[in-house]
């Protein structure tokens, strides 16, 4: 399990750059950033080294940020890495709310999954032979 930072951002000019600058000033290093956008607003999801400090810095900069618990699974960085993982979840009857992936060194990728019951999914995946990432 890792902690992801979620930020609610208005679709307005300069908001995302303000967000990244606030994190930079707080010395937070990001591993991944994705945006789920709607016509009115965006949800920015960040994986970083210091989630608690990140939230604090963002709030101080006038942004609304929360910490969300997500599952981060290490998969081999090769074709079919994610497909195998999703089939495993499927077979276990576990649904994911959303997910995203990023590659890191050593031929491995990390798949981040938002699920309802983080603990149950973590245990099920470990039992199925998966290794969970421990970034923060």
């Amino acid at each position, binding site marked *: 399990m890792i902690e992801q930072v*979620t930020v*609610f*951002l*208005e679709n307005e000019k300069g*908001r995302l750059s303000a967000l990244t600058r606030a994190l930079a000033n707080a010395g937070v290093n990001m591993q991944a950033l994705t945006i*789920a956008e*709607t016509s*009115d*607003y965006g*949800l920015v*999801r960040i994986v970083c080294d210091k989630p608690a400090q990140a939230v604090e810095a963002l709030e101080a900069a*006038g*942004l*609304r940020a*929360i910490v*969300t618990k997500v599952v981060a699974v290490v998969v081999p960085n090769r074709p079919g890495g994610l497909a195998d993982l999703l089939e495993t979840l499927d077979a276990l009857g576990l649904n994911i*709310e*959303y997910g995203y992936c990023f590659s890191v060194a050593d031929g491995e990728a990390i798949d981040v999954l*938002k699920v309802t019951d983080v603990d149950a999914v973590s245990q099920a995946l470990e039992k199925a032979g998966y290794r969970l990432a421990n970034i923060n």
Partner: protein
Amino acid sequence: MKKPQDILTAPHEELEAIQLEGVKKTIINCYENVPFYHDLYDDAGFDPYAVESLADLANAPFTTKQDLRDNYPFKMFAVPNEDIREIHMSSGTTGIATVGGYTEHDLDIWGDCFARGVWYADGGPKDIMHVCYGYGLFTGGLGAHYGGVKAGCTTIPMSAGNTERQIRVMREMGSTILCCTPSYAMHLADTAIAMGIDPKKDFKLRAGIHGAEAFSDNFRRDLEKKLGYKVLDVYGLTETMGPGVAIECMEQNGLHLAEDHFYAEIIDPKTGEILPDGEWGELVITTVDREATPVVRYRTRDITRILPGECACGRTHRRIDRLHGRTDDMLIIRGVNVFPSQIEDVMKTFDQVSSWYQIELTRKGHLDVVTLNLEPNPDFDFDEVRAIEQLQRDIQARLKSALSVGIRVRIVEPRSIPRSEGKAVRVIDKRGDDQ
């Protein structure tokens, strides 16, 4: 033979005599039959039997919307239940609504008042009146209907909604007079044009009697150009009757008050002083011959003025200018009265949102669009788009059932709604921007 229209050109002294006699009766009727007025006059030391002139009326205390609310539902009625034929209610949730009662006589004068719009448009039995104000507790639908029947028109009770059907009926039945809100008239015009219909050729409209919401002169010209007819503004409110208290004639230069049924004063809303003709202020109405729910010096909260001088049409009834806003925060959305406090009441039932909000009024095409911007509370888990959308839908549904008007709910970035030092700016009206 005497016609009901004759009163419209009666010498003004004659109207004043009718008003004085009627106002005296109304005050005594209120004092003797409505406990609220009995207490009000006793407390104020106002003698209801001492009114000798219309000027004496200035000594009577005002009646407010709150007074009517406090006496919900029937305590403002001056006649026994047996004599009431109909009830109407101003829009609003229970407890906020104000109730109007109508005896047979009241319904008759209502029809007479609205029929004047038809007469002003030189209309009558040859006309087909198409009514697409909502029928129901809202006074628009039935008020226009009674007017159509009274003027002898073939009256089509379409009620609101189902625009394509409205257009079909209007074309196939050859409607000549259209009664609805101005924004809906524009929507009808635009939809007809989009359907490949040329309203100027394919419709037989001559006049539109439009009210229940404010509209600009440009909007009127636009409407007249599209539909090839003449637009007459109609004013009214449930608290004194409904539409027909005042209606424009073809001169389109102010709305003729139905002075044989209503006595109007313009006051300074701050001091309560009566203002001379020509000066803008709050319209105050006393009913002259209303039986069921008479009111004395009712503060309408509508800002207008008495237009000095006589109208070129030759009718003697004084005119009020087109409305110039309100003294309170009431919004009129697609003809429905909405108070920001009603929206607040609904918001308070959701702990996922904070108490900061802003109402944005815009116009899409020609229909009012209301957007309610809300900020999530710090403990609201906004991580999933689905959760935010669900919350928006839930609030929207509750607003719809509470206010009878569709409001778009938008969850916005926390702290993005401007905090003001003094009175919060709760409403941003951008409806005039595109006109």
